């Protein structure tokens, strides 16, 4: 039987082509799922209350996870291997700064640069040997060791991923620990096949921290407290910034016009342009 896992369809820079990337700005189900995962990951990141932080988004793709960071008032830098995904991120007016790079070659940042790092649905890609010379264990170690050093001491990295087997979880966790991280796996809704989600929650030195607990029970039943918190934060940040016309259709059309004038490759306007995405909750 042919596998449905994207990582089995080819290397990520090939799989996330224009067509696949487009889904990440138009498919409301995908947007909804990625947004919820990002909110949970940021919650687990446990950034200092009411402070604007600098966050790294690993495998940032089209910027869906980054948009949540922006809404919560954080600055972010995103790294991804797919030019097509990054192009969509730019079209979506993502406010993070974007870098084209392969996380398996290491994170190209100075020591102590970030207050935290998130990664949504990307890490499982590192378990593949897409090129004959790829060695997943080596690439994972390179990734985690360089990630460790670019985080501020005591900062967290929260990586949501879709492991294929328990072995993969072990392989990933082992390399993270070898690189110096403490922490471990947080599993939300462990008893539900559909709602179950895994977050590798890592601490980069500093004081001893306790691993957060996974959510249990029915999916949705525990969302209220954290959701309320997110809404409050977003509102607070909106008030802080004042009225923003950003993301309105006119604003985006104007921006696109500016880009066209600059000779940038811009999507033709369509009915999707600036279409509101559905409310996540």
């Amino acid at each position, binding site marked *: 039987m042919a596998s449905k896992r994207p990582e089995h369809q080819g290397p990520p820079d090939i799989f996330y082509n224009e067509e696949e990337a487009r889904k990440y700005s138009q498919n409301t189900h995908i947007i909804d799922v990625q947004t919820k995962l990002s909110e949970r990951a940021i919650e687990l990141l446990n950034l200092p209350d009411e*402070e604007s932080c600098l966050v790294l988004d690993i495998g940032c793709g089209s910027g869906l996870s980054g948009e949540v960071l922006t809404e919560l008032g954080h*600055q972010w830098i995103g790294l991804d291997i797919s030019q097509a995904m*990054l192009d969509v991120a*730019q079209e979506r007016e993502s406010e993070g700064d974007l870098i*084209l790079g392969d996380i398996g070659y290491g994170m*190209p*940042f*100075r020591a102590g640069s970030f207050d935290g790092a998130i990664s949504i649905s990307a890490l499982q890609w590192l378990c593949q040997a897409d090129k004959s010379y790829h060695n997943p264990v080596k690439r994972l170690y390179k990734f985690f060791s360089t990630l460790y050093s*670019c985080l501020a001491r005591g900062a967290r990295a929260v990586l949501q991923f879709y492991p294929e087997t328990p072995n993969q979880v072990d392989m990933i966790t082992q390399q993270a620990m070898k690189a110096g991280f403490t922490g471990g796996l947080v599993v939300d809704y462990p008893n539900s096949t559909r709602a179950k989600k895994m977050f590798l929650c890592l601490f980069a030195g500093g004081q001893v921290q306790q691993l957060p607990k996974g959510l249990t029970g029915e999916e949705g039943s525990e969302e209220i407290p954290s959701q309320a918190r997110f809404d409050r934060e977003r509102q607070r940040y909106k008030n802080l910034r004042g009225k923003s016309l950003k993301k309105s259709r006119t604003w985006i059309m104007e921006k696109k016009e500016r880009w066209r004038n*600059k000779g940038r490759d811009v999507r033709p306007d369509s009915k999707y342009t600036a279409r509101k995405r559905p409310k996540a909750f």
Partner: protein
Amino acid sequence: MKLITHNMLTSNILKGVTRGFPLKIKADKMEHISVDYNRDFIARIIPRIEYDALRAAVNDLGLNESLPEAMSETLQQDDEFLKTMHKVLLEYEVEEGELICPETGRKFPISKGIPNMLLQETEVS
């Protein structure tokens, strides 16, 4: 690419490179895009900025911004200074250009605002 990103980027993922910082920067095309001023963020990030590297980048790019020669604690509370830092770190964008490894001369192109840090397998450390 914003200058805050340039200030964090290194080329030490290259084989044989020890520090890889600061990357030399060349711009063929720049933009100035205003960003909401967030004093808390700037004050929080300043201690983490390699100030000399930032001044060098401002100089390389020929930006008309005057950053004092040395950073001090009083300066970090100074509103004028914080606003200049906000502008320099977050509002200038290099659209087209390149970053150059200070140790090997390896060039990393910047295209459509995105630096390309992809490596050949033989270059990986």
